[in-house]
């Protein structure tokens, strides 16, 4: 198993596997970066609601594509469906919060669980239809890079790269809005538009990552790297960079590990690698970690 792992890790396990690894890494980088802004804006849990709400959209897109005569497996199509229902989920959270007296956390919980439940109903409806193709959809729950097509890997890589590029381009205004929206508004920044842009980018990276880590755990790749990075530095630019590296690294390593042995589902393995990085950061990190006082003493002395 070690052999397989090392091969996959160094991109020597075949062209397909290498593409998958690169695609996953692009996703991890973008997710880590997006997560930095997301956690600063305190919108981590909303993204979880969106992620769970993608499930009905994935199945409906599958059905639509099959109805149009296709195989129903084209990843861009599935991602589009996912994006639509996830967007609707976000709107539902906002509507519940704004128009009723329910607090936001209840709205999030409701959309998350009901969206997922509806997705499961649709999934079981499809199960009776074309069992073989449906097997591909099950992989969206917890991620499954096994048997991922070249085209899929490319889609994920492009999606991740595009989101990362936009995030880097918008990093300064996004950072300002994240740290002090009032001040940013005074400076003339379009705070509302930037918030919407951030959620749109989070939506994009969420649907990109569905194939890799799945609906249930994509929030982990958004949040864990960003939280880990905060233990090393307080400077916004560096947090983003570090979060991207941790996210990318976790995806790369996790995908290799998952390919190395049986019974290692991709999503959970990637999440556990990221979590390990977090534990290390918590213990060793100079900015806030448990060892932080030691670092400070060392710097002073």
């Amino acid at each position: 198993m070690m052999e397989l792992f090392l091969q996959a890790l160094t991109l020597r396990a075949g062209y397909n596997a290498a593409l998958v690894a690169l695609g996953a890494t692009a996703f991890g980088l973008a997710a880590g970066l997006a997560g930095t802004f997301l956690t600063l804006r305190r919108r981590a849990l909303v993204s979880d609601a969106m992620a769970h709400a993608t499930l009905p959209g994935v199945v409906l897109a599958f059905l639509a594509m099959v109805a149009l005569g296709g195989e129903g497996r084209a990843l861009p199509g599935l991602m589009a469906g996912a994006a639509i229902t996830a967007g609707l989920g976000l709107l539902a959270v906002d509507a519940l919060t704004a128009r009723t007296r329910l607090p936001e956390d209840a709205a999030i919980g409701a959309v998350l669980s009901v969206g997922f439940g509806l997705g499961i109903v649709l999934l079981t409806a499809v199960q009776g239809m074309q069992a073989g193709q449906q097997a591909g959809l099950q992989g969206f729950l917890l991620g499954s890079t096994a048997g991922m097509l070249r085209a899929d890997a490319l889609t994920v890589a492009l999606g991740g790269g595009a989101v990362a590029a936009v995030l880097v381009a918008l990093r300064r205004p996004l950072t300002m809005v994240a740290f002090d929206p009032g001040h940013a508004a005074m400076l003339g920044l379009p705070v509302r538009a930037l918030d919407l842009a951030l959620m749109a980018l989070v939506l994009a990276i969420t649907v990109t990552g569905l194939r890799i880590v799945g609906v249930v755990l994509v929030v982990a790749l958004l949040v864990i790297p960003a939280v880990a990075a905060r233990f090393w530095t307080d400077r916004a630019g560096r947090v983003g960079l570090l979060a991207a590296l941790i996210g990318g690294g976790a995806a790369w390593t996790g995908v290799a590990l998952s390919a190395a042995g049986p019974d290692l589902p991709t999503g959970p393995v990637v999440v556990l690698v990221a979590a390990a990085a977090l534990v290390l950061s918590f213990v060793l990190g100079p900015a806030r970690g448990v060892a932080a006082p030691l670092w400070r003493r060392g710097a002073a002395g």
Partner: protein
Amino acid sequence: MTDPAFVQLSLPPILIGTLAAIACALPGNFLLLRRQAMVGDAVSHAVLPGIVVAFLLTGQATGPVVLFGAVAAALLAVLLIEALRRFGRVEPGAAMAVVFSTMFAAGVVLIEQSGAGAVHLDVEHALMGNLESLIWFDATGWGSLVDPVALAGLPLELPRLALAAAVLAGLMLLFWRPLVLSTFDETQARAAGWPVGLIGLGLAAAAAVAAVAAFAAVGAIIAIAMFVCPPATARLLTDRLRTQVWLSVGFATLAAVAGYVLAGHGPGWFGASQALSAAGMIATVAGGILAAAAIIGPRRRQSFI
């Protein structure tokens, strides 16, 4: 409904689903009012590794060891969340997301690696329960309800869930005053000498017990729907807590029964034969009821909290 098949195949799942929904709705009322709905979310995810470890030790997905494992896992989650918030100054939502997703991932890997999936507890169960399979082979008709021999063959989940729901209801009644006071006026609760922190922890533990109960029926994620939707629906219909709790029980029951029936028999009405996920349908119905209340509920807008 006079058909023995109903008693064999449908009655136990309907009862189990209903009891699970009620078990979650009860603490869910207080979580909602304390703006701690995400505790239900976190606990539902976090109990998975606890359940798996207990399952590996005892071979059962319900029972006292499993309860212990679940509560231990939930308390571990609370601890880890607090550690992140205190030492890392991580904001609460992110801290919860980190802990519960990591623990859930650990639970899934444990299931896969330990081969538990081959026996009884697989990942599919964790995600969507297996309500449909909790059937009563030994039943021959309604008469079996008073037949001790047949009753011995009842799926274990049913009496255990009934006990869990009863215990949760009892605890709620027993601790009603401190619960209500600490929820609506924490300062006064402290002044009156109530251990507010402990009450909060107790509520999380109760949520863990409910989550395990629901897990047996509908899996982890749909349990969240049961924590949130019936109490939220009730909240949009009344200002009075007692009424809210009763209504939440009613909506939980409605969602469970209607959900199960729609999932099992709905497709037949359209000429299809594939049964749908009962758990998913229960969550969907609960969501539908909530949506209706959000649109026409008499108390949907005013807020005194």
